[in-house]
């Protein structure tokens, strides 16, 4: 049972060399219930930017890094959003752009220490310098950056700023289907 779940989760990982580590993490996760942070290439991640046309879920996708002070400061706002709208069609994704080499050292410990509940993933965009434009041509390349997507209303907003919970709420509330 455990083995099969490892393989299933393992498909999320780009780097198969992570498997032993994932095994440890998974074992650990049964104890601490900390979430597993997948590592995605940009191509795989990009699917999150392109929900199906009739999908009315509001995706709030935040780009951050453990070293980025304003990003870390605004994470509680996203966590609160995730918690407040848990029963509605709102999905918060926290996309770390820390370097792949910092995954074990920085990202996973950070997610565990801060008990992040929103879905966290590490995007390894090394070698794809177009990814900034692919996320949004308006992105200058600084973080924090956040994109709000709702395919059904053709909403695709992009912000290169630090958010408060209230500001986030003001953006998503008109989009939520009553």
């Amino acid at each position, binding site marked *: 049972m455990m083995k099969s779940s490892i393989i299933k989760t393992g498909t999320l990982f780009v780097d198969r060399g992570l498997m032993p580590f994932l095994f440890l993490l998974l074992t650990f996760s049964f104890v601490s219930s900390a979430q597993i942070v997948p590592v995605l290439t940009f191509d795989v991640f990009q699917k999150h930017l392109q929900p199906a046309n009739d999908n009315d879920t509001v995706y709030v996708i935040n780009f951050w890094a453990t*070293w980025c002070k*304003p990003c870390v400061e605004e994470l509680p706002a996203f966590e609160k959003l995730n918690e407040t709208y848990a029963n509605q069609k709102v999905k918060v994704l926290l996309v770390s752009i820390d370097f792949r*080499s910092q995954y074990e050292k920085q990202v996973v410990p950070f997610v565990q220490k801060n008990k992040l509940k929103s879905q966290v993933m590490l995007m390894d965009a090394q070698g794809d*310098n177009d990814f900034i*434009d*692919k996320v949004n041509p308006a992105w200058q390349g600084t973080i924090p950056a956040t994109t709000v997507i709702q395919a059904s209303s053709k909403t*695709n907003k992009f*912000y*290169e700023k630090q958010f408060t919970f209230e500001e986030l709420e003001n953006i998503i509330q008109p989009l939520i289907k009553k």
Partner: protein
Amino acid sequence: MRLIKSTLSFLTVIVVALFSFGFINHARTPLSFGEGARVRQPGYNVGDYAADFKLKNIDDKMVSLADYTEAIGFVVVFTCNHCPYAKLYEDRLVALDKVSKKKGYPVIAINPNDAASHPEDSFDNMKKRAKDKGFTFPYLVDETQEVAQAFGAAKTPHVYLLQKEEGKLKVVYIGAIDDDTENTKKDKVKYVENAIDAVEKGEKPNPDFTKAVGCTIKWKS
């Protein structure tokens, strides 16, 4: 005449500041997902002419581009001490200067960050950092942040390759130093060096505009 000129440049700074403020802080809705269309950037774009500046170097002397009568152009790079991405590029900036200076394009580093909010970026720390890292190029402080605003610099590191053209400074490349921030690839694409090579041959750099992740410039509030 002088008054008119300074009034004009002051107005330009205000306009640029308002423009960039608007651009950075307001949401824009692109036409479609993932479309890589070029958006007009605040400040200088490729093909624009850059204004010269006069800023204090870490040796306490004032530096302006006009001082470099022999130069063919400049690698102007907005950088700082504290940003992890800027740090990763320090050694590569020294290496780049070695190559580019010989070709007539000296590196001019500018720290635009507000040292009040980021003490690591103070003038004294700039001096220390330059000494520790053996900077071979001027490391200037943009205390009023007017130069960074005029250029439209958004982050550190952020490079503007300038080429002298009939006494003016034409912007020929804007963006990243290379395509390998973490410095792990053997076959990295050295954007700035390639751009210099292209300009030397009388060609247009390809690409002449790249984007890489960097740290936001810490503007004074």
